[in-house]
């Protein structure tokens, strides 16, 4: 650093806005292409491999039957369109949602260990789902599995919030404590239910608890997809205030952010999004924790870059993980959380170590 404090000539190493913007657009287009490719793979591969050409054909045909020819092989077309494509699309939406919510919650509670299920959402949802699966839907006012899971998620979040707030303000510390302790309570409750359940039911429950996109049909995709995508788009508009929060609460205030109100707004939005996701896919572990950190290592912590990159990366990642879940031990289907853990955690640890090594080298 120059010893004098006088004004120095403006020596500006940063590239102009337009060039930086072009770079960002290129990255997002690349990731978007990766999402499309992974969905295409997800729709094509499996116990019966559908040629990529047939997959593309059936999609084009469904987009416009006037412009594009009917797919040659009706069996391939049915497998790709009826069974695999809705599942791949839902996987992309859930992956994007988990990653985006993970990014936001980590910033909002200023804790790198935060994940989308921080506020007891997954255990609340699991309790609702287990009630339906084990006791029967009559026990929860006739709600189906997804609705009961959604209701459980929202009730859990509401309880966490009520426990954590004091005079309408929540602090990250109290939120995390309340979330963790309520999660234990709900786990105890559904553990008790499972112990008393008939063993045949337990397997179905376990698959759900570990996350699964199995038996997704087109009718399952619409409403959750719209809800989650709307949530993600809203979160994308909150990048500036999220950045302000990174420097600390006091700094955020000095940058014009009403921290208390912003925090509550983010909690409400992320809870709704996570509630929808957990209702359709169960609790998929690690995606909402790993993808945000992975993307931070790649593009930094500025949420204007980080949020879209994380959402697209999460989408591609979960589609590929679901593909692995279907194919690795086919015909047995693995729960998603097991696959995300087996693939994701070693990769993450490797990345973490790379990063540390790079850091030390710079200091040395």
């Amino acid at each position: 650093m120059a010893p004098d404090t006088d004004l120095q000539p403006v020596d500006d190493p940063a590239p102009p806005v337009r060039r930086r913007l072009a770079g960002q657009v290129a990255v997002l287009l690349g990731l978007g292409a990766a999402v499309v490719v992974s969905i295409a793979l997800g729709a094509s591969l499996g116990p019966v491999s559908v040629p990529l050409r047939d997959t593309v054909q059936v999609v084009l045909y469904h987009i416009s039957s006037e412009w594009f020819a009917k797919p040659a092989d009706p069996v391939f077309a049915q497998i790709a369109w009826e069974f695999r494509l809705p599942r791949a699309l839902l996987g992309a939406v859930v992956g994007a949602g988990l990653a985006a919510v993970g990014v936001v919650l980590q910033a909002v509670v200023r804790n790198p260990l935060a994940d989308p299920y921080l506020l007891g959402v997954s255990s609340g949802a699991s309790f609702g789902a287990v009630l339906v699966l084990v006791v029967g839907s009559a026990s929860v006012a006739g709600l189906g599995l997804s609705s009961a899971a959604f209701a459980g998620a929202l009730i859990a979040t509401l309880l966490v919030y009520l426990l954590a707030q004091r005079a309408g303000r929540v602090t990250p510390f109290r939120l995390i404590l309340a979330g963790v302790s309520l999660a234990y309570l709900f786990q105890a409750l559904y553990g008790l239910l499972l112990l008393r359940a008939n063993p045949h039911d337990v397997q179905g429950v376990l698959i759900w608890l570990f996350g699964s996109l199995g038996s997704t049909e087109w009718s399952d995709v619409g409403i959750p997809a719209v809800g989650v995508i709307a949530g993600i788009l809203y979160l994308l508009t909150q990048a500036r205030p999220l950045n302000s929060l990174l420097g600390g609460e006091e700094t955020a205030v000095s940058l014009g952010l009403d921290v208390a109100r912003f925090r509550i707004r983010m909690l409400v939005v992320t809870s709704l999004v996570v509630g929808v996701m957990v209702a359709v896919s169960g609790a998929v572990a690690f995606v909402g924790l790993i993808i945000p950190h992975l993307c931070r290592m790649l593009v930094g912590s500025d949420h204007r870059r980080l949020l879209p990159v994380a959402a697209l990366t999460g989408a591609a990642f979960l589609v590929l993980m679901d593909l692995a879940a279907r194919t690795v031990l086919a015909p047995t289907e693995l729960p998603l959380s097991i696959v995300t853990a087996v693939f994701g955690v070693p990769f993450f640890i490797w990345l973490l170590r790379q990063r540390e090594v790079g850091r030390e080298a710079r200091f040395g």
Partner: protein
Amino acid sequence: MTGAAQGSAPPRVVVDGVSVALGGTPIVFEAGLTVGAGEMVGIVGPNGSGKSTLLRAVYRALRPGAGLVRVDGSDVWELSARQSAQRTAVVVQESGSDFVLKVADVVAMGRNPHKGPLDRDTEEDRRICAQSLARTGVSALAGRDYDTLSGGEKQRVLLARALAQQPRLLVLDEPTNHLDIRFQLELLNLVRTLGVATLTVMHDLTLALGHCDRVYVLHRGRVVADGPPAEVLTPGLVAEVFGVRSHRWVDPDTGQAHLGFSRLPDPTADVVTTAAGGPGREPG
């Protein structure tokens, strides 16, 4: 360094009769102060005297139980948080982030108060950030990770962010904390050259003496003296408020005034009789 640039222009900041309580405990009592355009005003006082609390009331982080804070003529509590941040920029002592940020990202945050949620950064914003980096002498660090910087570099970067807010008032909370002596002097000289009205909590009385146009002395939550530091920081006041013996001497080479400190002979400093209080108000 006298020459308080008050003249006829209205002061940038008026704090009037402000009382603040934290969790039911009263911390600041009916404090008042002003900062004129281009003036550098210090708040000094021992630990726990309410300096930082008073400062937080000025930058709208704490709502006072009574009294008024006006910046540029507007009651800060009639402004939104964002409007207040368009006028007042703050450099606080805060633990670093667990998340990696580039220096350029940190400084770019300074534009947030001026931006709606969907506004993109323009060439104008970029130019303001580049200028802010240049004014605090850290342009070369723009591409570095913030958490790899030294303490002095970090303070300069935070100052650059504050400048990127284009504030009418700069608020600093012990800006020289954790800096070695050279960076302390450099930073305070730098702040003076910026020409922005500045309100700063100062820990070091000698630095306050050398760099502030005026100081306010806070003792147990009350302003007990104010004025040019050379007039205010008398041995009597320093003994009463800080509980130490002080003596001032002028460096014959530089002509600068310095304060030296030693323990008072009687350790029960509270009951020392003070012949000369400050020229300011006594708590009533």
